[in-house]
């Protein structure tokens, strides 16, 4: 029986990576928040990799941290190995990545929610979003009959919504990790006019550590002196475990090929669209048939866990096939599977129905984040959760929205891609998606975003001050390098010769000029820089990047200025695209559906060609002339 269970400002549905950030952000900003989760033991669960960060995802985590989110801190605290990926490929693609203790991460996150004022963590399955007479969100009903009043609802349903798992011909309606699926809410979302789609993802088997011959495998250790994700938190990640590398081989592939008729991915049982960039092993074997082997990693699921996650072997093949194929792999000849891999299919919405706040345009008060919006990955989910939570709070307070643009960084790019271009497969963040990546780096997320986090009340003044201090010190050191002249002395020229770079002739050179030379690093220059002040390593890093990449950084700044011009041409809200006969039909329909805020956003919509943008500009200027705008 339905009963009135309480009144909140905001109800967050789900306590995965998106739900956690949404609930914490809204509560910390002052809203009264209810956070629902179908199983309180699964708060902050990592049903796939026991890992946070990675290429482009590491950037997201640092941005989340700079805005006052929780993920970076929790990941640092529960890290059991930490590495900076893509070292040597340039600062734009450096990406921090941690192996995490799953159990510790869950408990750290659960306690963060439990200890947050204004927030109640509550077990329960949402069944229906209720609207008031004006068509705005007013409550959420649980399957138990509890009805919680709320002015805003943030949906973060992950893979639980309509979840169905596949292991060969074994199919079960359930969520990840043996948890229950949430089956009632989809009907309510359909009734609200949202179109529902099916996406799928998958996970590899977990192997019993004791059954693996680790001595046959190449170990992979964490970085010395890792810095972590979180800025100025005082927590340094630890390295307490090793990962191991191995490979599939021709025998593995034979077994896979022989079992394709039992893979639901190939027999057509799965309708959901899977991610191209995170393919299952059967996908890889079929699509890259000429590849003799595929790289695999064994990643510990925790410091004291006996489970090894077999990265790279995601599969939906039947259990007996999984056992057979795993045992063809070097080091895994006697491996025992503890948890078999599986594919999971789930309900999600078309993100084109959202705006940059991650609000459902047609339903005031309804927000969405994470896999429900078509993304994949913990970090993508957390980033959206943070933005949706902040905006749910601002919506409830009647305040102006908080949105990030592509120029602000990866979070802005992620959301702009989702709500402007949409996605036909689970969307993963990649460095190649950010056109301003030389400016939007992981090392300067604090400089880019902490000010905003401070203004929102999510970042403490003490942390924001540290970011300002970093910026000040960087400026000072750059000025000092410019003013400090290395003389054309024997000592200086010997130093230059030892670094295989040309000597100074008659005139001296500033240290700034010398640092521009590819052969010289900031550290190396210390030898001819007796007056160098003692500056923190993160400042030295900023200085070095600013000097080495100055030309490119300037260019990106110009690109950003260009972009801002297009972004500053806002499009009137009620504009009638369907009657614009100058536009092609597809463009008219897309513009009508997505209703971009700016001309810049209009140009990024797939199906809107440059010629359409041209025509749109003409129409706008004609309307302006006729004073219709």
């Amino acid at each position: 029986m339905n009963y009135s269970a309480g009144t909140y400002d905001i109800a967050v549905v789900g306590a995965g990576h998106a739900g956690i950030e949404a609930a914490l952000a809204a509560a910390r900003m002052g809203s009264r928040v209810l956070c629902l989760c179908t199983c309180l033991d699964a708060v902050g669960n990592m049903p796939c990799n026991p890992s946070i960060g990675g290429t482009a995802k590491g950037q997201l985590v640092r941005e989340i941290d700079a805005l006052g989110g929780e993920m970076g801190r929790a990941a640092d605290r529960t890290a059991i190995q930490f590495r900076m990926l893509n070292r040597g490929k340039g600062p734009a693609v450096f990406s921090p990545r941690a192996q995490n203790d799953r159990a510790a991460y869950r408990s750290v996150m659960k306690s963060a929610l439990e200890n947050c004022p204004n927030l109640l963590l509550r077990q329960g399955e949402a069944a229906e979003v209720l609207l008031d007479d004006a068509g705005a969100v007013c409550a959420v009903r649980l399957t138990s009959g509890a009805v919680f009043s709320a002015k805003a609802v943030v949906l973060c349903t992950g893979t639980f919504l309509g979840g169905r798992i596949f292991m060969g011909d074994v199919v079960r309606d359930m969520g990840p990790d043996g948890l229950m699926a949430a089956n009632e809410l989809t009907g309510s979302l359909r009734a609200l006019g949202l179109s529902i789609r099916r996406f799928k993802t998958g996970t590899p088997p977990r192997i019993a550590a004791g059954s693996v011959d680790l001595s046959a495998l190449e170990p992979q250790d964490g970085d010395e002196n890792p810095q972590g994700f979180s800025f100025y938190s005082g927590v340094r990640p630890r390295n307490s475990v090793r990962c191991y590398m191995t490979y599939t081989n021709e025998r593995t592939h034979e077994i896979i090929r022989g079992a394709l008729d039992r893979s639901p991915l190939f027999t057509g049982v799965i309708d959901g669209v899977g991610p191209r960039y995170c393919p299952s092993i059967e996908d890889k074997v079929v699509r890259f048939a000429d590849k003799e082997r595929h790289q695999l990693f064994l990643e510990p699921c925790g410091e004291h866990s006996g489970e090894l996650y077999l990265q790279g072997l995601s599969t939906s093949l039947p259990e007996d096939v999984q056992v057979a194929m795993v045992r063809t792999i070097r080091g895994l000849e006697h491996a025992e599977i503890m948890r078999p891999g599986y594919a999971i299919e789930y309900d999600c919405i078309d993100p084109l129905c959202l705006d940059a706040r991650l609000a459902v345009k047609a339903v005031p008060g309804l927000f969405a984040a994470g896999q429900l919006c078509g993304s994949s990955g913990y970090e993508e989910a957390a980033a959206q959760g943070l933005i949706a939570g902040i905006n749910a709070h601002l919506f409830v307070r009647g305040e102006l929205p908080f949105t990030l643009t592509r120029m602000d960084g990866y979070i802005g790019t992620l959301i702009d891609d989702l709500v402007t271009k949409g996605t036909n497969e689970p969307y993963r963040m990649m460095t190649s998606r950010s056109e301003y990546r030389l400016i939007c780096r992981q090392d300067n997320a604090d400089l880019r975003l902490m000010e905003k986090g401070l203004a929102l009340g999510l970042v403490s003044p003490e942390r924001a001050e540290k970011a300002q201090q970093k910026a000040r010190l960087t400026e000072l050191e750059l000025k000092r390098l410019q003013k400090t002249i290395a003389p054309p002395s024997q000592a200086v020229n010997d130093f230059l010769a030892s670094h295989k770079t040309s000597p100074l002739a008659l005139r001296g050179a500033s240290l700034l000029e010398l640092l521009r030379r590819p052969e010289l690093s900031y550290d190396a220059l210390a030898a001819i820089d007796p007056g160098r002040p003692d500056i923190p390593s993160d400042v030295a890093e900023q200085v070095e990047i600013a000097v080495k990449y100055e030309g490119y950084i300037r260019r990106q700044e110009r690109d950003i200025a260009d972009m801002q011009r297009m972004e500053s041409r806002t499009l009137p809200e009620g504009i009638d695209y369907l009657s614009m006969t100058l536009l092609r039909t597809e463009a008219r329909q897309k513009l009508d559906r997505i209703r971009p805020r700016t001309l810049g956003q209009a140009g990024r919509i797939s199906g809107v060609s440059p010629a359409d943008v041209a025509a749109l500009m003409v129409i706008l200027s004609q309307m302006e002339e006729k004073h219709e705008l």
Partner: protein
Amino acid sequence: MDTIAACSGGALPAAIGIVRLSGPDAGPIIEKIFSSKDENPITKKKTYHLYYGKLLSQSGKTLDLCLAAFYRAPHSYTGEDMAEIFCHGSPAVVEGALRHAYALGARPAGPGEFTRRAFLNGKLGLVEAEAVADMLDAQTEQEALNAAAQLDGAIGTPLRALRGELTGLCAHFYAVCDYPDEDIDPFEYSRASETLLRAGQQLRALCAGFERGSLLKSGFPVAVVGLPNAGKSSLFNALAGSDRAIVTSEAGTTRDVLEQPVALAGGRVLLLDTAGIRTPEGEAERIGVERALQAAQRARAALWVFDGSQPLSGDPEALPEALRGKPCAAVVSKNDLPPAFDPSELEDRFDAVFSLSSKTGEGLDALCSWLSGLIPPAGEVLVTSPRQAALLRRALDSVDAALASAQAGMTADAFLLDVEQAVRFLGEVTGEDVSQDVVKDIFSRFCVGK
């Protein structure tokens, strides 16, 4: 989209007039304007076939007996439903047909509108659309051949391939970075440099081709020089076939450089008529002389004009510095008057000597065929649009910058930004990627909405 109609033939009257319709109502309109012989509507007949029938006026009277064709979307020039009527080229017939079409809801097409629609509907790339404009402007066979080859993708296709190669370079790097766990072939800087080097060469060749291509379009520049009153302007007018230069018998009348393209058999020549080179007597004349010298700088060849009715005076050695080493012919003018010297006296100092009369036209043909022979043959397909050339130049600069950075040890995350920029410029050439500037350009050229 509304339906547009226009006379697509040349000026009337002519042997044939062409009325063209494009848009969703092209079918219903052609059915009413044109009644085929067997009285079945042309839209129900085969697409892309000519049918014979009656052209009807608004009042239903037969205007003409003619041929017509209907092209069903998307297989038409514009990508929309289209119809063409080939009637007798009388203004009354063509205008009658158009009036009827307008009465049925068509509107007059704006300049370039059929081509613009073809571009908007993805039937033509930008390079190809520009080639259409070139084709319409073509005055020589060489220009027409070049435009036709461009329309056929002779520039667009290799550019798209080059763009693909550069995009592939970027994609490889990002694949390596974005999938650190997959063992993808490592991104090798040496191979990246090779690709950039090759791309640079290709772009350099295209840019050089533009210089030749612009000669093709603007004409091979030839300076017409000589002492005052030698008959330069008369020669200029005779070659150009119009009275562009002011011709008087008073020395020093031509004070400006006049340019006149002249279509010859071998291609186009751009004649640069210069003020007489002499000691200037006034400010205006001084400027004229300076301009003449500048024109000589641009010229690839010169015609030195001598007055055949006057004894040889002045020093033909005083050829402007800028013209030395370039082909130079002596033109002995006014051979309709009694000769004052033997033209063959000039033979050892010039590449060729022509005796002619600008007044009667005698001897002009020989001069024209000498000029035709100077024009370099096209051979390859040349870039002719300044817009394309400017973008190719910028793409080349970006590729060169990337190569320099790569060789200076810059990381790929940075120098690939240059490559991505080159990809954008190439995309703008072909119309696959268009920035705001191009958008503005599209505006002005196609007069959208005016």
